[in-house]
């Protein structure tokens, strides 16, 4: 079914379909779909994508709000189970959780950093059927853990979440995605950091092979604030992690990191894009991937430095290890620089595991396979050892062991 018909037919399930402004906006998006030639070569959101799967989908959605849970188990610490993209409303003197509002939707539609041709974001905006908004109030220091659950097969979740950290606040956010049913989640996280705030965002992704996960994050960071995102992707299904970050005021920082472990026929597409719009900001974009079997990955990174963004420091690193001769990795580390007083750099390496290192370890009596596993672990050691949450570190170690057990 084409996008237009799909949209018309399911309007009743789609959020804000009565809002006139939003209707007009959606008409525009439909137009984009109808006129785009889906040129895979020049559109980063389409590379390695089976278009038919994603644009010709069966739209099905179930509200099961009543089963979502919010738990304030410890002081300043919350755990949330979000079901089918929904979350109960909640309020105390530190945080506030509500449904996503049409004004948030409109506000986001005005951003100009996400290109019009990121079709997954456009799909999300068109078919939005879930999502929530979490506000961290001034000067609070909060921990939140969210488990994202999907209840049924064949669901397509189009979810938009807003996270707002007010001035002086800090949030430690751990999100888990471990879905086993045959479904698709298309999630857009819109993140706003007010002055002097911090968000440490961890995403642990471990879905089964029949679940597709598309996560797009848009973060905007104000003065003296830092946004950190760390993605750990162990999924056996398709995952897309795209991140667009805007450093809007002086002395702000974005640190975007990811590691992914692919095998079988799996595909993962990744992108980080940081736009420096003010002086003295820093960004860091580091993705590492291990690819086995016939897996495929892409990583696009981009540091854009505006003319006013003097004294920028921007760093990119992309590293890939190909374990099999059928795996493939594409990376495009881009620098676009319009200010002169900058220090920007990127590095990228793709290759097999270092043969000299394997030889060295074998000469110490280790089997080839054991050596390989040790070297894979050391490849991502820095990322793993920097996890300061013990529980999370344990979870990730376990998943790594599971992945390594399949490496032959």
């Amino acid at each position, binding site marked *: 079914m084409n996008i237009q018909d799909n949209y018309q037919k399911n309007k009743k399930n789609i959020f804000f379909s009565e809002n006139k402004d939003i209707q007009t906006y959606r008409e525009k998006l439909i137009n984009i779909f109808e006129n785009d030639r889906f040129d895979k070569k020049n559109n980063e959101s389409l590379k390695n994508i089976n278009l038919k799967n994603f644009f010709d989908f069966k739209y099905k959605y179930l509200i099961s709000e009543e089963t979502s849970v919010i738990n304030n188990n410890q002081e300043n610490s919350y755990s949330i189970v979000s079901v089918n993209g929904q979350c109960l409303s909640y309020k105390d003197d530190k945080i506030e959780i509500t449904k996503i509002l049409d004004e948030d939707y409109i506000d986001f539609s005005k951003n100009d950093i996400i290109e019009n041709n990121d079709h997954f974001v456009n799909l999300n905006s068109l078919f939005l059927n879930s999502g929530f908004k979490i506000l961290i109030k001034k000067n609070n220091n909060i921990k939140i853990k969210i488990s994202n659950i999907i209840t049924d097969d064949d669901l397509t979740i189009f979810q938009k979440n807003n996270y707002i950290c007010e001035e002086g606040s800090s949030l430690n956010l751990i999100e888990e995605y471990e879905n086993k049913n045959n479904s698709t989640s298309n999630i857009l996280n819109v993140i706003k950091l007010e002055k002097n705030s911090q968000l440490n965002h961890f995403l642990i992704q471990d879905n089964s092979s029949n679940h597709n996960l598309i996560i797009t994050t848009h973060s905007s960071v104000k003065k003296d604030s830092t946004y950190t995102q760390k993605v750990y992707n162990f999924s056996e299904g398709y995952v897309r992690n795209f991140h667009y970050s805007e450093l809007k005021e002086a002395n702000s920082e974005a640190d975007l990191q990811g590691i992914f472990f692919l095998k079988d026929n799996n595909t993962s597409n990744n992108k980080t894009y940081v736009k420096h719009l003010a002086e003295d900001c820093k960004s860091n974009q580091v993705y590492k991937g291990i690819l086995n079997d016939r897996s495929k990955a892409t990583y696009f990174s981009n540091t854009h430095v505006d003319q006013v963004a003097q004294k920028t420091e921007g760093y990119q690193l992309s590293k890939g290890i190909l374990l099999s001769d059928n795996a*493939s990795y594409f990376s495009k580390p881009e620098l676009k620089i319009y200010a002169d007083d*900058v220090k920007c750099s990127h590095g990228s390496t793709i290759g*097999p595991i270092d043969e000299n290192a394997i030889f060295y370890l074998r000469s110490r009596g280790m089997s080839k396979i054991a050596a390989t596993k040790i070297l894979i672990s050391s490849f991502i050691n820095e990322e793993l050892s920097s996890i300061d949450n013990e529980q999370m570190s344990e979870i990730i170690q376990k998943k790594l062991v599971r992945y390594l057990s399949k490496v032959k």
Partner: protein
Amino acid sequence: MNSDTLNTLNSYSINKYKYGFVTEIDDEKPKKGLNEDTIKFISLKKNEPEWMLDWRLKAYSKWKKMKEPKWANLSFPEIDYQDIYYYSAPKGFEKKPKDLSEVDPKLIETYNKLGIPLEEQKVLAGVAVDVVFDSVSVATTYKGELEKLGIIFCSIGEAIQKHPDLIKKYLGSVIPPGDHSFSALNSAVFTDGSFVYIPEGVKCPMELSTYFRINAENTGQFERTLIIADKGSYVSYLEGCTAPKRDDNQLHAANVELIALEGAEIKYSTVQNWYPGDEDGRGGIYNFVTKRGLCAGKNSKISWTQVETGSAITWKYPSCILKGDNSIGEFYSVAITNNFQQADTGTKMTHIGKNTKSKIISKGISLGKSQNTYRGEVSFLRKADKARNYTQCDSLLVGNQCGAHTVPYIDSKNNTAVIEHEASTSKINEDQLYYCRQRGLSHEEAVSLIVNGFCKQVLQELPMEFAVEAQKLVSISLEGSVG
């Protein structure tokens, strides 16, 4: 940035182009515009065989269906292909002159001014030169010596007459006319250019060189160069270019094809100094060039070195197809943009064979209000076992109104291949400037020295005869003051 640096920079961005003079000479042109008649006119002027005309017309029909490639980071007004002359020759060039006594003295004077003497007693030592003025090749030096070794070095027009087998076999074999719109355009209307064939086992004892000069107004230059290095041979080829100052933009869309057979090596160096336009961005050459080399045989090697300082727009990606096992591709580039110049340049290394190696060293320097983009693609195909690439691209920003961009595409489909890529962008280092000035160098000298140092890895790849010239050119592009 401190005020001294700014002052120096300002004086730099007033670029003065040394080669901007016009030669007053009668020329012969067909009507403006591109159509089958224009192509027939060119083919007739060149006295070409039927098959060549057919080849051109086929390319033309492809071109009609194509759009210009749009991915580069360039902005320029739509090119009106009907407002260009596609052929221009100094009067009396129906036939290439046999010797210099037949050449208009004005032309010889032009080349003397450009530092390329053509007179027998003055020719550059160790460099054989083919000189192209607008659409025609006017002279080739050292021809006899080369012939003794079996080396063919002549204009492509002459090669079509005398060596049709080689032309039929190789022309368009690396850059198919239908590759993109500029290659189709060139294939349809190319006027002259050089042809080189190095026979098996011959190491060409001198540099071969072509010098391109656009003189006539509103004239596009579409030359075609084809170099074939047969088994185990070696050749080093240099290309230089200039054009007069004019307020209009002129189009240059050349195609260069290189073929290296087993064990052969081709070294291709360019010093591109087309007129870049004035301080306000008026005029200048639009340079849309396709250069591609095929390492067809085992153990072959193709190395591109370019120093790009001119042109209003540069769109150029000298590439290597590494097909033969163990073959090597190299790309060394310095691109300097000033005033309103835009450059989108880089390379493409396609690893097909086993054990193939490539190396990319790119240095970009942006000044004034210019935009300088490195765009490069490295891909390892499935069979490219143990292939390796090393890429380093560094950009230097001088002033805060210009842009420096790096757009690498890295694609690996082989798990034994290793790719390493590094890039950096920064401004000119104030501590280095301070150090040099503390030793008594002026601010200008210090900048020029540091920039030349920054480019050294590339400049040292140029043949001796050119390296010194190129260093001077780098300094001139920075300072605009003529020595």
